[in-house]
């Protein structure tokens, strides 16, 4: 029983779908926070009769003025790893992976835990440092494992044909090879 490991095209497709989801999430968060910030800056949330807060308010206003332009960059840097770690840990697949019927598993077929997910994200960073060669390793590996998969000890399988079969197949001793 051989699992259907996900190849370069499926994984790139899932990655692009996730980029779209993340872009929407980031843009939405940025817009909501900026709208709230602008409302506060415009003073609409202030009670003009409550003078005791005025001193504090000016401090908040200054802080908001300086902080609002950073909302976008902070969201753009923090959302992708949080999004991936959360989805890999909770469901074993990001929405993009779910669209392509992919699931990330540990090399022994068990589901991904928090530590493994964090290592995998670090593996992504390592792949970026290798100018994407780490990702391209997927195409050259028998188990279709990229650098990030080797660092985290994970595999990505097609689980849409028969989910139980994919997980069971990964769990067979032949598939646990650390060499990929």
């Amino acid at each position, binding site marked *: 029983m051989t699992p259907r490991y996900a*190849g370069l095209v499926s994984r790139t497709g899932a990655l692009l779908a996730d980029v779209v989801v993340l872009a929407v999430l980031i843009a939405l968060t940025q817009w909501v926070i900026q709208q709230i910030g602008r409302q506060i800056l415009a003073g609409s949330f202030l009670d003009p009769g409550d003078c005791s807060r005025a001193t504090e308010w000016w401090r908040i206003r200054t802080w908001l003025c300086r902080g609002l332009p950073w909302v976008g960059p902070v969201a753009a840097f923090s959302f992708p790893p949080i999004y991936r770690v959360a989805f890999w840990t909770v469901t074993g697949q990001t929405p993009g992976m779910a*669209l392509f019927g992919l699931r990330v598993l540990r090399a022994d077929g068990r589901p991904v835990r928090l530590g493994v997910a964090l290592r995998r994200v670090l593996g992504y960073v390592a792949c970026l440092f290798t100018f994407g060669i780490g990702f391209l390793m997927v195409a050259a590996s028998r188990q279709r494992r990229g650098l990030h998969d080797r660092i985290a000890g994970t595999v990505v399988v097609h689980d849409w044909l028969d989910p139980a079969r994919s997980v069971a197949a990964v769990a067979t001793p032949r598939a646990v090879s650390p060499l990929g």
Partner: protein
Amino acid sequence: MPTGFQAQLADRIAARLLDSPLAEALIERVLQALVRSAALEQLATHVVTELERSPAVDALVDRQVERVLRALEKSDVVAALVQEQASRYLAHLEEHPERIRGLVQGQSRSAARELTDGLRERALAADDAVDALVRRLLRRP
């Protein structure tokens, strides 16, 4: 020309023959033979085929159907019946919207499933194609 006596005699003989069980058996055997006969079957098949092919029969049927449809179109009874059924149907849908909702949801779900299945199948095939290409480039078996 037979005389009156001869005619009477012939009628009586014929009546006696028809009343006799022998005549009945004879008629039955003749009928059975006719039913079993290939010639009769061929004739029947030929007649049916000719009727099927006949433009005159076609035209007759068309004319009749057209006439009936025209009459139905104008019929107040049919209009009332259709209106009543439509009202009933709409009332039923109003009372049980979950059925139509389920139907619509089911259709959208199956359309989405078809779309994702197509996408996944294409991606899977592309994965294999890329693998084959890389294997060829790296000269791997």
